[in-house]
């Protein structure tokens, strides 16, 4: 028995080690390096003087600016997540339960398209659409009998639109999978018992697709809280978010230790939010 166990153990180690090596190289090492940076007083390049300190973390709590920006980013994350769910759930439902055959494949292609296009190209395309005298304004004015000014560029709305466009596919795909797994005879059964469409949605479809919906929500919320490209390009003057501040530390101000510390605070807050919501995530039926 002991021998068999050892052999199994060896085999498991052999099979799992590439995965662990990869995790170590791709996640653990860079993250450790950043954690180390976040504890330094200055960038350890050239002849800069540096020492180990907690000052960078202290900076977050000394002024309210960072906390306010983090809160702004979390709100942005929630807004984008909610909008993604409101648009994504009906899309996924139609895809999973109404459309059959080839047209479904075509629609899937259209949904996944944002994933295949370069994010910068995507964002600048939105800039062309949303700016004053842009595609959107011209289109709206071509239809409406009166003229309206429609300059969404450099507003929060523009940031939300850009982010929703980028992250909507996650919600649609995860929700689609969950909805697809719901047996159609469950819906038939509910109807035979007299349930209308709303009751079926509320008591069957929503609870049964909740795991997919939540998975999609997490996939959207986490990156959006740290997003910096869409806010910077589409938000302009209003585009200062927690993510853009971190980016500034690395790219513009060259204060890597502060950027790293802010990143870890973000990581901690996101993990905390996920931990707090995990009872809901776990309660969802398998």
């Amino acid at each position, binding site marked *: 028995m002991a021998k068999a166990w050892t052999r199994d153990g060896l085999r498991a180690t052999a099979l799992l080690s590439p995965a662990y090596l990869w995790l170590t190289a791709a996640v653990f090492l860079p993250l450790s390096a950043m954690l180390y940076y976040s504890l330094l007083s200055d960038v350890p390049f050239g002849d800069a003087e540096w020492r180990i300190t907690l000052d960078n973390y202290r900076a977050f709590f000394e002024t309210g600016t960072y906390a306010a920006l983090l809160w702004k980013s979390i709100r942005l994350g929630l807004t984008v997540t909610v909008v993604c769910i409101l648009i994504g759930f009906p899309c996924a439902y139609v895809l999973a339960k109404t459309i059959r055959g080839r047209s479904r494949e075509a629609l899937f292609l259209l949904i996944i398209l944002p994933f295949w296009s370069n994010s910068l190209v995507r964002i600048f395309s939105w800039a062309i659409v949303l700016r004053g005298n842009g595609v959107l304004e011209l289109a709206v004015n071509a239809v409406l009998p009166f003229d309206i000014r429609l300059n969404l560029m450099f507003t929060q709305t523009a940031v939300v639109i850009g982010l929703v466009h980028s992250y909507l596919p996650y919600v649609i795909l995860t929700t689609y999978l969950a909805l697809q797994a719901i047996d159609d005879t469950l819906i038939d059964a509910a109807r*035979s*018992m*007299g*349930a209308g469409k709303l009751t079926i949605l509320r*008591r069957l479809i929503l609870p*049964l697709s909740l795991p997919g919906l939540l998975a999609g929500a997490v996939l959207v919320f986490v990156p959006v809280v740290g997003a910096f490209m869409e806010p910077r390009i589409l938000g302009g003057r209003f585009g200062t978010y927690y993510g853009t501040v971190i980016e500034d530390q690395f790219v513009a101000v060259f204060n890597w230790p502060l950027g790293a510390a802010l990143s870890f605070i973000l990581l901690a807050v996101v993990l905390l939010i996920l931990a707090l919501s995990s009872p809901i995530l776990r309660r969802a039926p398998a």
Partner: protein
Amino acid sequence: MAEVSVENVTKTFGATKALDSVSMDFPNGGFFALLGPSGSGKTTLLRVIAGFILADNGHIRIGGEPVERVPVERRDIGMMFQNYALFPNMTVADNVGFGLRVRKVGAAEEKRRIAEALELVQMGSLRDRKPHELSGGQRQRVALARAFVTNPRVLLLDEPLSALDKALRVDMQIELKRIQREIGITTIFVTHDQEEALTLSDKIGILRNGRMVQAGAPRDVYNAPDSVFIAEFLGDANIFSGQVEGGALRIAGGRAIRIPKGAEGANTFAIRSEDMAISLEEPTGDDTDRIRADLVQRVFAGAMATCIVEVEGRRMKIVARERDLPALPDEGPVWLSWETDRLKPVKDE
């Protein structure tokens, strides 16, 4: 509770006629089986009665009220699905209470009726389980309770026992019949298992290629099948066909068989496999007819035995109690005999 009637219902899917002018009455409180091979349209008929499929034309009445244009959710039916379709996110009690909640019967009433229904199917002790924690038989009971708890006008069961193993199926047949008698609800069920249909129902409707080929009490349909198809589909039967000449049927090989009185017009006859006897010696007697045959195979199956014989190149099947069979060799020449009035004239289709 109500009677159901289906009148000239037709349904086409593309080029195929799933139902071709089907009519059948289901009197109040009865237990009815829709029987047929797969693709015969029996499930389509059940789903038309339920309202999941709208018929192209014809009439469906539940309790005298025409329901062709009434959607499923307002037909006041109870339906049990082949895979049970229990809601995986709800407990047994919530599954059963779903229809009551929709009908807003009130919390106390809801609780009482859930308990009552679960008691009737002997699932009272498992009310807080989730469906995935139940065995197949238990799921079946819950699905049944869920279907009748709302006191629907008609109970529709789609292959209710097909997902169970043989031993459990026989138990559940008895159970199903008991529950149906106890609540006295008009029940229509679909099955491809002829034994199940014969055991459970007061009336059987047999479908073939979308047409209702015969309907009636199980005993009547079994003893007097309309056609070759029904004779062979319900139980085992042997068919004689040929030309009628002077009160006898001349079958292949030139041999004549006496035909029963009053059936001189027919040229195809069916006889139940158990109504034929097999022997080594030529049997005697005035009211029995006999024919030579070749025994091809003798199959032992416990109490009963099946003998495969050949008459003029045509295979026939004889079913007899093992102990009634003479000491037959495994193959060789034998005599078949039967009482003439056991031959039933049937349509050759």
